[in-house]
C-alpha cells in the first residue's frame, strides 16, 4: 500500500511534466494536453479510492509512506513522508474527485485557448501541491504543499498575462498568501522550539506537556497562516481579485480545494487547538465576522463570479465557525459539501459565461433556462443546497455548524464560555445569531443570482448556447452529490471522522443532538430561514422587481458602501501599501543616497580633497611667506622647549 500512497501525488506531477513536454511543441498536440492531464487526475483518484478501501475499518488505522530524509540538523530532523488516515482520505478523495471533474470540464471550457498545454500543466501541478499539503506527515511537507498551491494559484490567476490586471491579481494573491505563510512559519518555529519536531504524531504526544501560553501563541500563528490561505478577514482581499483567472481555476482552487487548506490544517492540528481555548475563540470570532461581511458584499455584486467568490469567503467563514467551536469534523463535512455545490455553481457560471461568449455581468443575462436547461437545473440544485434548503447536503452541514456554535457542551474542550459580548450575551450565542442572519443573506443573494441569470428576458446581445457534454457531465454529477450526499451519507460521514468529532456530537453520546429537543426547534428554525431567504429572492427578482431598485435608491450610502467592498482595498492601499512604498523611497533616496553614500562615503572623499586644496594654497611661491612660516615654527618650537623643558642652566 505504501507504494500507491507515494504514487498518488506523483501522478499529477508526472502528468504536469508530460502535458507540458508532449503537447507543448506543436498545434496538433494541444488537444491532447487536456486529456493527458485528466487521465493523470483520474488515475490519482482511482489510487486514492483503492487506498481508502484498504484503510481498515479500525478507527485509528493509518498508512504511512517514507520517501527520503529531506534535511537533518541534529536534533531536528525533517522527513519527506506521507500519512494517510481517515481525515486525509476524505480530503484526498475530494481533491482528486472534484479535481478530475474540473479537469474534464476545463477541456471543454478552454477548448480554443492557444496556451492550453501550459494551463493543464499548471492545473496538474496544483493537484500535486494540494496532495502534498493534505498527505504530508509533518508540518513542513504540508508547508511545501501550502506554498506550492500558492504558486500555482499565482500562475493560474495570471494565466492570461497579456492583460496586466490579471498579472497584478496573481501577484496580489501570492503576496497576501505569503503574509499568511510568514505567520505559519513562525508557528512552526515555535513548535520546533517547544517539541523539537514537526511530525503530527510527535506533536500530538508532546503538546500536552508544553507551557499553555506557548500553545496559544503557536495556535494563533498557525491560524494566521490559515487566514492568509483560506481568505478570512483581514487577508481575504485576494480571493475576489482571483476571479481574473479562468473559471475552472476558480472552481478548483478558489472554491473546492486550496481555500479549504486552512480548515484542513486546523483539523490536522486538532490536538494543538483543543489545548488553546483562547485561540478557538479568536477563530470563532474571525469566522463569524468574515461570513457576515462577505455575505453583505455578495448581495450587491453584479459579476456572477464575484458573487460566487464572496459566497465562498462567507462559507469559509462558516467552516472556521465550526473549527472555532472545536467541531472539527463538522467543519470538514461543510468543506466536502461546499466543494460539491460551490464547484457546481462555479462551473455552471462558467458554462453560462462560455455560452454568452465571456460575458460575466449578470445584468446582461436573463431567461437562460430555456437556452441552457442542463446548466439551469444543476445551478438550481446547487443554489438550493448552498441556501440550506431542507434535506439538501448544504442544509445538513450548515445546520450542524450552527448547532455546534449554539450548543455549549460542558466537557467539550471548546472555547472558554466566560467570554461575553455586548453586555451579557455569551460569545457563541452572538456568533450563532450572526450565523443565522448570514444564512438568510446567503439564501437571498444566491436566489438573486439564479433569478437574474436564468429567469426574466434575455438582456445580452450574444446568442447563448448550451455547453458541450464534456462540460455538463461534471455539472450533473456534482449537482447530484450536492443534493443527495448530506441526506444519504450524513450520518456515516460523521461516524467515519469520529476521531475529529466533538464529544457531544458523537453518536451515542448522552447529550447528542438527536435527543435534544432544542436541536429540533433550531433545525426547523434554520429551515424556515432558508426558505424565507429563497422566497424573498424569488419575489424581489420576478414579481415585484421594483423593490431592489427602490432599496438601492433609498439606502444610497449603504449600497455604495457595500458595492465598494467596505472600502477594504482602498483602506489597505492608503494605510499599508502607499506608506510602505513612500517609506522605501525615503529609505532609498535619503538614507541610502544622501546619508550613507553622500555624506559618509563621498563626503569623506570630498573632505580629503578640500584638505588638499587648503594645503596647496600654502605653497604661494613667494619666498618671504616660506621664510615667515619657517620663522613662526622656529618660534613655536623654542616656546615649547622653554615651556616644557626645565631650563638646564
Amino acid at each position, binding site marked *: 500500500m505504501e507504494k500507491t500512497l507515494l504514487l498518488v501525488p506523483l501522478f499529477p506531477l508526472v502528468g504536469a511534466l508530460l502535458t507540458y513536454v508532449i503537447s507543448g511543441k506543436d498545434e496538433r498536440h494541444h488537444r491532447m494536453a487536456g486529456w493527458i492531464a485528466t487521465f493523470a487526475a483520474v488515475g490519482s483518484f482511482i489510487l486514492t479510492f483503492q487506498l481508502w478501501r484498504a484503510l481498515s475499518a479500525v478507527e485509528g488505522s493509518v498508512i504511512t509512506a517514507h520517501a527520503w530524509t529531506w534535511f537533518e540538523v541534529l536534533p531536528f530532523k525533517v522527513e519527506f513522508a506521507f500519512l494517510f488516515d481517515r481525515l486525509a482520505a476524505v480530503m484526498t478523495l475530494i481533491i482528486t474527485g472534484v479535481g478530475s471533474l474540473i479537469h474534464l470540464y476545463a477541456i471543454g471550457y478552454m477548448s480554443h485557448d492557444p496556451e492550453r498545454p501550459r494551463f493543464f500543466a499548471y492545473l496538474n501541478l496544483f493537484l500535486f501541491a494540494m496532495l502534498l499539503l493534505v498527505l504530508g506527515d509533518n508540518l513542513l511537507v504540508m508547508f511545501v504543499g501550502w506554498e506550492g498551491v500558492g504558486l500555482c494559484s499565482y500562475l493560474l490567476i495570471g494565466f492570461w498575462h497579456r492583460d496586466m490586471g490579471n498579472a497584478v491579481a496573481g501577484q496580489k494573491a501570492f503576496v497576501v498568501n505569503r503574509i499568511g505563510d510568514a505567520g505559519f512559519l513562525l508557528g512552526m518555529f515555535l513548535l520546533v522550539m517547544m517539541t523539537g519536531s514537526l511530525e503530527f504524531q510527535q506533536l500530538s504526544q508532546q503538546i500536552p506537556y508544553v507551557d499553555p501560553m506557548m500553545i496559544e501563541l503557536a495556535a494563533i500563528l498557525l491560524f494566521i497562516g490559515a487566514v492568509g490561505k483560506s481568505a478570512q478577514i483581514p487577508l481575504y482581499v485576494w480571493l475576489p481579485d482571483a476571479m481574473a483567472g479562468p473559471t475552472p481555476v476558480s472552481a478548483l482552487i478558489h472554491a473546492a480545494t486550496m481555500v479549504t487548506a486552512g480548515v484542513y490544517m486546523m483539523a490536522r492540528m486538532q490536538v494543538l487547538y483543543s489545548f488553546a481555548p483562547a485561540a478557538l475563540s479568536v477563530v470563532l470570532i474571525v469566522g463569524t465576522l468574515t461570513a457576515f461581511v462577505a455575505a453583505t458584499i455578495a448581495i450587491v455584486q453584479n459579476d456572477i463570479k464575484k458573487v460566487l467568490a464572496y459566497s465562498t469567503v462567507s462559507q469559509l467563514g462558516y467552516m472556521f465557525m465550526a473549527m472555532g467551536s472545536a467541531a472539527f469534523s463538522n467543519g470538514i463535512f461543510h468543506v466536502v459539501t461546499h466543494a460539491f455545490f460551490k464547484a457546481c455553481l462555479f462551473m455552471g457560471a462558467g458554462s453560462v459565461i462560455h455560452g454568452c461568449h465571456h460575458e460575466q455581468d449578470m445584468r446582461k443575462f436573463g431567461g437562460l433556462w430555456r437556452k441552457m436547461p442542463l446548466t439551469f437545473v444543476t445551478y438550481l440544485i446547487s443554489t438550493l443546497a448552498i441556501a440550506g434548503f431542507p434535506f439538501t447536503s448544504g442544509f445538513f452541514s450548515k445546520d450542524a455548524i450552527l448547532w455546534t456554535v449554539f450548543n455549549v457542551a460542558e466537557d467539550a474542550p471548546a472555547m472558554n464560555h466566560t467570554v461575553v459580548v455586548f453586555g451579557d450575551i455569551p460569545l457563541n450565542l452572538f456568533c450563532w445569531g450572526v450565523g443565522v442572519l448570514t444564512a438568510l443573506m446567503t439564501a437571498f443573494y444566491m436566489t438573486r443570482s439564479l433569478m437574474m441569470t436564468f429567469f426574466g428576458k434575455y438582456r445580452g446581445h450574444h446568442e447563448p448556447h448550451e455547453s458541450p457534454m464534456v462540460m455538463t457531465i461534471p455539472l450533473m454529477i456534482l449537482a447530484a452529490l450536492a443534493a443527495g450526499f448530506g441526506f444519504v451519507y450524513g450520518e456515516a460521514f460523521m461516524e467515519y471522522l469520529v476521531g475529529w468529532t466533538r464529544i457531544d456530537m458523537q453518536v451515542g453520546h448522552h447529550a447528542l443532538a438527536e435527543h435534544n429537543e432544542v436541536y429540533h426547534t433550531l433545525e426547523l428554525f434554520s429551515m424556515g430561514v432558508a426558505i424565507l431567504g429563497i422566497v424573498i429572492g424569488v419575489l424581489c427578482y420576478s414579481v415585484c422587481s421594483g423593490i431592489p431598485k427602490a432599496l438601492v435608491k433609498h439606502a444610497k450610502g449603504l449600497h455604495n458602501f457595500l458595492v465598494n467592498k467596505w472600502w477594504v482595498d482602498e483602506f489597505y492601499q492608503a494605510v499599508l501599501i502607499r506608506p510602505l512604498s513612500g517609506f522605501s523611497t525615503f529609505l532609498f533616496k535619503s538614507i541610502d543616497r544622501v546619508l550613507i553614500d553622500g555624506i559618509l562615503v563621498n563626503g569623506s572623499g570630498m573632505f580629503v580633497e578640500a584638505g588638499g586644496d587648503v594645503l*596647496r*594654497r*600654502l*605653497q*604661494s*611661491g*613667494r*619666498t*618671504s611667506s616660506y*621664510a*615667515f612660516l619657517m*620663522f613662526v615654527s622656529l618660534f613655536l618650537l623654542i616656546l615649547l622647549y622653554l615651556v616644557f623643558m626645565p631650563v638646564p642652566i
Partner: protein
Amino acid sequence: MGAVTGYLYLSALLFSLGVLGVLVGRNTIVILMCVELMLNAVNIAFEALSVHFQTLDGQIAVFFVMSVAAAEVAVGLAIVITLFRNYLSVETHDAVTLRG
C-alpha cells in the same frame, strides 16, 4: 654680572631685527645682509657667554660661524646674480614660478 645679560639682550634685539629684515625685505641682497646681521647677533651672544663662563669654546664657535657666514654669502651672491640674469630684477615678489 649685568654685562652678560646686557649683551644677550643686545644679541636678541639684533637677531630680531635681522629676522624682521629678512621677512620684510624687498630686495634679495638686503635679505642676505640681514642674515649676516643675525649671524653677528649670535656671535655676540657666543662671545659674551664665552667670557662669562671663562671658556674659549665660545670664541672658537665665533670663528666657525664667521667661516660659515663667508661661505653663505658667496653662494648667496652667486644665486642673486643668476636670479638677476633670469628675472632682470632681484625683487622678492617676482620669482614666484614655484607657486603650487
